């Protein structure tokens, strides 16, 4: 076992060695270095072929047509292109957008930008498990609603929205539906023949591909239109200009090909590891799992240890690489907006850990993590005045705190 142990696969994943090999074959003079847009020689043709193979692999994972895949620099750009692109194209139809309070910042900040441009945005509250129901979406729709943007899987708590059911609502109401699938592609089945999704943001680096490459799925039937956000050269059928990064694209394609072949087995394995982790922690006193446990990606566990502050917990767990919902590291002192939106109080939000498991996590890693976490929580509770008060039967909600 090598320390520190990486348990932050929801942040990014290492590149699979098979992916790295495919990428390395697209860089040097002896290999496939050409510009895929060069039409006049075989260097260009060969690069174009590699890019189109990759496009097919990406499309196959989500059961789409390769012509529906537009390469971007990542999911953030894909979200920007989808949201601003659709809003700008359909603005004559209306200027109302629906999203949720627990979206990724790429979605929330794109919506904020549109608000500055005169659009109106409704931010839906999730239920206490972190899910957005189709009924909630339907109720928020107005005659001037042009776009609904929701995530398939939440990056902090890993819960899975029922995209298929929400897609029926948006299609029936003739509203464009964008889905951020950065955390779900390669982990859950996505079938765009069945799901009535119009736009979908994808990334490579959450499923063992490289950083710096992603894609936007843009539905052809019924056709969805977007205004490009980057101009110059008219690549990607005019939707996203810029020379295609062959090695990045080939890496994403290989990562998606591997995911299609191995994701079922991998999901079973990571789920077993998460269940082992949860079993090892759930009998600790005052422990809370954040987000729905049934509708959840296999590799995610988000858990709060009441009366222990998240950053000090992470400090005690320096052999484990994971994330906390406590924002003590930032200047804001605001804890996770996702956990707050679930109705978790500030203490529990400050006390949360996100542990995400992936392809290279072992059972031994999980055993070690359980032992370290239990030890650290016990140690920090010994130090915690809140734990003392809880043990003395003091209701912390009734205390007049001197907030600073």
């Amino acid at each position, binding site marked *: 076992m090598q320390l520190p142990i990486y348990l932050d696969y929801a942040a990014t994943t290492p590149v699979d060695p098979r992916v790295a090999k495919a990428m390395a074959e697209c860089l040097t003079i002896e290999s496939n270095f050409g510009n895929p847009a060069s039409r006049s020689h075989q260097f260009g043709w060969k690069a174009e072929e590699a890019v189109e193979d990759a496009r097919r692999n990406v499309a196959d994972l989500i059961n789409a047509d390769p012509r529906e895949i537009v390469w971007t620099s990542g999911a953030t750009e894909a979200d920007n292109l989808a949201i601003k692109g659709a809003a700008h194209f359909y603005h004559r139809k209306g200027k109302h957008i629906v999203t949720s309070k627990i979206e990724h910042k790429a979605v929330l900040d794109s919506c904020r930008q549109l608000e500055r441009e005169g659009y109106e945005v409704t931010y839906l509250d999730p239920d206490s498990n972190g899910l957005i129901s189709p009924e909630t979406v339907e109720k928020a729709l107005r005659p001037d609603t042009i776009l609904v943007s929701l995530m398939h899987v939440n990056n902090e708590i890993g819960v899975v929205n029922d995209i298929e059911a929400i897609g029926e609502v948006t299609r029936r109401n003739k509203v464009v539906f964008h889905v951020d699938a950065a955390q779900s592609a390669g982990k859950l089945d996505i079938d765009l023949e069945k799901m009535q999704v119009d736009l979908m943001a994808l990334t490579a680096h959450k499923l063992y591909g490289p950083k710096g490459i992603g894609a936007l799925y843009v539905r052809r039937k019924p056709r969805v239109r977007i205004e490009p956000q980057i101009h110059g050269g008219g690549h990607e059928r005019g939707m996203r200009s810029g020379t295609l990064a062959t090695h990045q694209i080939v890496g994403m394609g290989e990562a998606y090909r591997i995911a299609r072949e191995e994701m079922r087995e991998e999901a079973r394995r990571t789920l077993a590891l998460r269940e082992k982790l949860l079993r090892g922690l759930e009998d600790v006193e005052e422990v809370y799992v954040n987000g729905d446990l049934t509708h959840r990606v296999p590799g995610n566990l988000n858990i709060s240890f009441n*009366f*222990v*502050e*998240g*950053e*000090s917990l992470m*400090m005690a767990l320096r052999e484990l690489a994971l994330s906390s919902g*406590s*924002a*003590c*590291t*930032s*200047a804001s*002192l605001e*804890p996770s907006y996702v956990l707050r939106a679930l109705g978790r*109080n*500030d*203490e529990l939000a*400050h006390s949360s850990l996100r542990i995400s498991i992936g392809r290279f996590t072992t059972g031994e890693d999980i055993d070690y993590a359980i032992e370290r976490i239990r030890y650290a929580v016990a140690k920090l509770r*010994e*130090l*915690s*005045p*809140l*734990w*003392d008060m809880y043990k003395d039967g003091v209701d*912390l909600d009734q205390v007049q*705190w*001197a*907030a*600073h």
Partner: protein
Amino acid sequence: MAYSDKVLDHYENPRNVGRLDDADANVGTGMVGAPACGDVMRLQIKVDGDGVIEDAKFKTYGCGSAIASSSLLTEWVKGRSLDDATQIRNKDIADELGLPPVKIHCSVLAEDAIKAAIADVRKKRGNTEE
């Protein structure tokens, strides 16, 4: 975020963790911060007949810098008179621990805690001295 060796030392081996009997008229308690902000410090001091702090204990819910700030403070106040202890400034704590700018509030909280503990014990002892 990288922590200084001194913060790590206090975090790994916190000094004077515990609680003193709040019913004792010679014990002053300062509880500052709020769970919502991610920091709560409880600092307690016990004062002898000459107005000198003979013991100090703390418990802190908060980040490593908050724990280190309160741990350091308990070391500093022991053996000092109440008047002397009121002179401790957050900057002294921040400098000693090498706190980065985003963690200065931890040292501010520690200063607030000792001031609150001193005020509490003075109130409890009433006009019997000083």
